[in-house]
């Protein structure tokens, strides 16, 4: 049912969806119970001539019970939700599986640009591949991304991966993902970042190792050797300075 809306293309996509379904089941139960009781009461106690209303303060013990029992059940449900929610959060945002590859993701008005280590597999070396809009990754590989922004707050989101992380200027925020499904998926900016916000789209292309190797071979450009390999953050702040003048 879920896949009809949006596919799961990363290892933690499914755990997030399962958490969603768990919460849906629990709160859905409460919601249905409450609404049923609600409408049943409205119907049962509709105005009838000659039927006096009852004077109930709701302070007596045997009445308070009707509130305290659901009250503790709600707390119980909260805990049942809390534990898996924090577990999922921990696995996605706190625990960081060792990187097999590291890429740098840079948001700026209004495009995503990416810096991928070339054949040597190390960032900030001469053979790095810098791309705009498209990020090429290998399937079943754990990627760390170093997220930066050159101007305003952006948010790096890949819906099919259930991945979302804001990019703050001046900070480097590290995250991870492990694509497990070959294909091409959207990259969104989900934090309003100016008039080009809706143009700030990208694509992540998840390839088989062979295809990725071929792509690397085809793109590891010698011209990169000439340009100084500077970490993007510095050039970033200089761009900010320019924009200000």
């Amino acid at each position, binding site marked *: 049912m879920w896949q009809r*809306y*949006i596919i799961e293309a990363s290892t933690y996509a499914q755990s*997030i969806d399962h*958490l*969603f379904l768990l*919460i849906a089941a629990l*709160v859905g139960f*409460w*919601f249905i119970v409450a609404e049923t009781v*609600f*409408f049943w*009461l409205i119907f049962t*106690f509709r*105005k009838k001539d000659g039927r*006096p*209303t*009852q*004077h*109930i*303060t*709701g*302070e007596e013990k045997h009445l308070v019970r*009707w*509130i305290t029992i*659901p009250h503790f059940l*709600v*707390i119980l449900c*909260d805990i049942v939700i*809390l534990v898996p*929610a*924090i577990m999922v*959060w921990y696995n996605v945002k*706190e625990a960081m599986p060792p990187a097999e590859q590291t890429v740098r993701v840079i948001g700026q*008005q209004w495009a995503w640009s990416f810096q991928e280590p070339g054949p040597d597999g190390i960032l900030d070396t001469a053979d790095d591949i810098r791309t705009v809009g498209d990020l090429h990754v290998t399937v079943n590989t754990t990627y760390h991304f170093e997220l930066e922004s050159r*101007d*305003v*707050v952006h*948010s790096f989101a890949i*819906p099919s991966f259930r*991945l*979302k*992380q*804001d*990019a*703050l200027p*001046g900070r480097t*925020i590290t995250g991870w993902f492990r694509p497990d499904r070959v294909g091409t*998926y*959207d990259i969104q*900016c*989900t*934090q*309003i970042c*100016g*008039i080009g*916000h*809706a143009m700030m*789209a990208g*694509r992540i292309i998840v390839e088989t190792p062979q295809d990725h190797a071929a792509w690397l071979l085809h793109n590891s450009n010698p011209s990169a050797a000439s340009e100084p390999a500077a970490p993007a953050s510095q050039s970033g702040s200089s761009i900010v300075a320019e*924009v200000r003048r």
Partner: protein
Amino acid sequence: MSTQVHHAEPGIFQKYFWSTDHKMIAMQYMFTGMAMALIGGFLAYVFRMQLGFPNKSVPGFGIVTPGKYNAVVTMHGSIMIFWVAMPILIAAFGNFLIPLMIGADDMAFPRINRLSYQIFLVSIVVLLASFFVKGGAFGGAWTAYPPLSASGAYNLTPAGATLWLVAVALEFVAFLLGGINFTVTTMNSRAPGMKMFDIPLVVWMIVLASVIFMASVGPLIAGAIMLLFDQTLSTGFYDPSRGGDPLLWEHLFWFFGHPEVYVVLLPAMGIVAEVITVFARKKMFGYKTILYTAWATGVLSFVVWAHHQFVAGIDPRMANIFTVTTLLISVPITEMVFLYIATLYGGSISLTTPMLWALAFVAEFMIGGVTGIFLGASGTDIYLHDTYFVIAHFHYTFVPIAIISVFAGITFWYPKMFGRMLNETLGKIHFWGTVIAFNVIFIPLFMTGVAGDQRRVYSYAQFAEQARPELQHLRTTSTIALLVMLSFQVIFLINFFWSLRNGKRAEANPWRSTTLEWTAPSPPPHGNFAELPTVYRGPYEYGLPGRAEDYWPQNDPS
């Protein structure tokens, strides 16, 4: 007519523009708020048209360019929260009800009250002016995250951004003055015999809301000054390249922004409590428990703010704390809703228009409540943050608060405000049209949100996964439903203004209610009461066994 000598009848200008009478100020707030609601509704129409029928010229507006779209969305959010929900729920109802319900002749500080409205009016002028300055109105979302909001080079609306900020700051000042006045009046000016737990819930809730607002807005006022300096004096409070930090604003904003939700929720809860007890002819189930849950909510609302920032770059470990507190706050709110439901038990429910609105509030607010859990749970928020799921969720809280409960209040107190009855038939048509359309607007948006539609985007053409036709159909459905909902508001306006002259004359207590405002004539004269009442009992004494009448007014000595 009032016996207090000093209440002479003022002249026209005095009466309508310079009055210190709390009822007149309430009317000023209400009509201003309704006018702003029309503007906010029109803005909603503009961007929903763009989303439902992309890149078609919107009748009455024209082509929606990306820049205009951002401005329209930003203004819709700001106006609906700061210039509709707060003035109507807190200022209008607070001004009208507090002195009447606590048996006083006016606010404790009438001139501070008038000043509060005048500052509020100035804030509106500033805000509306921002539509016409160079670059147009501010387009950085109502959350105004810097550096986007701090630098004209980024938002391309330098003048609009500053005017927006000034308007919001003025609005804060207005509501600080008003809220402190409400609090002091309720604490000090109650009728003889009205003890703490004899105060009607709506007064309690409005005062609690004012206190929460007062305590949470301070840091944001400081933050707004800093942002203003960033915009105008080129300071670097939020500029990382100059030793500042953009994340600071997000914290300051949400430290206010989340309590703000309860600032508008509590008065709505109070209004609904009054209406339900009257039309179910029932004593409130667990009056004190409701107050305790309200206090608990108020305190907890100060420790949950960062759940708006789970993926905003805060330290991930902090998210765990805020997830716990966020799920904790669901407990008192749930309990409050349970108590409202339990109040219906054993009643004799007559489904008048106000009652329909009040019941609809409870039914719809539950949807908003349960969907909040998905966002409060950090795990699912990773995916749902800043999607349309969020939008659908908070509209399922804010529409019941700012629209449904307000209609409950207006239709309920209309006789007291204007001395006329509203037309029931028109009222019911308006109710069903509005509520059904409302659900058809936002249920599709839950789906598009789950499908990954991100917020504040004027067109999904760039995003292959979002550009699928089945999602576009959902968006179009929502837009059409909005058109229906808006058109039904015409019926309300007709009913409202037609009844002002031609409605059936209302006697003092048409609903046979117990609270003090119904002992004053409808509409109450300057000074409210012929002689100021004395209170003998709590507000909700309905259906007592062994009494001729099924209600026992608070001021009835027998």
